[in-house]
């Protein structure tokens, strides 16, 4: 039973445009949400997070939106840059001390 779902395995976006990566979760107990970025042959690196008390968190070109009623979050990257091409993982956990559960990832291609 997959608790964190990223239904788009891949996404292609023109350089300079907005990239929107989506994530859905099923466990209403999840309280904290994270996005990770992964390049080939490297471990994932933390990108941005949001707690359930907020609906938006912004860090430079990256913004995460959380819709708790819909159990949905999204990552917006604007403007998209070539270095953004990577696999993006959505992740969630129930509380501070709980394990983190990852989605299957979305491969983002930024087109020149």
């Amino acid at each position, binding site marked *: 039973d997959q608790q964190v779902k*990223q239904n788009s395995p891949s996404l292609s976006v023109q350089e300079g445009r907005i990239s929107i990566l989506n994530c859905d979760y099923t466990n209403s107990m999840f309280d904290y949400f*994270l996005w*990770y970025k992964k390049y080939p*042959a*490297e*471990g*994932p*690196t*933390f990108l941005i*997070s949001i707690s359930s008390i907020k609906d938006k968190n912004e860090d430079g070109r990256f913004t995460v939106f959380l819709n708790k009623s819909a159990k949905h979050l999204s990552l917006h990257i604007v403007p998209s840059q070539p270095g953004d091409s990577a696999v993006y*993982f959505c*992740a969630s*956990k129930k509380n*501070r*001390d*709980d*394990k*983190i*559960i*990852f*989605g*299957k*990832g979305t491969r983002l291609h930024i087109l020149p």
Partner: protein
Amino acid sequence: GAGVSQSPSNKVTEKGKDVELRCDPISGHTALYWYRQSLGQGLEFLIYFQGNSAPDKSGLPSDRFSAERTGGSVSTLTIQRTQQEDSAVYLCASSLNADTQYFGPGTRLTVL
């Protein structure tokens, strides 16, 4: 370096052999996680150590898999009687107080 390190970086073994994968977390990090990523799949949670608490082993796929964390630092993931379906990249991550995880580069395991 101050990051998470894993060894070996690559391991090729024959079906039925035992393997040990090592993870050196960031010094002082209380939480340590093991994940695996099979080809074309997302990050599958395996096991989670948090301080002196009993580890969360709920992700281990079979009793052939076990992990230890000695002295609250180095961790070893052991796979006994390896099978071809065990082939994957095994990723270790550590975090301080279960916040943002920092991942190592992974160990690529190939079972022939």
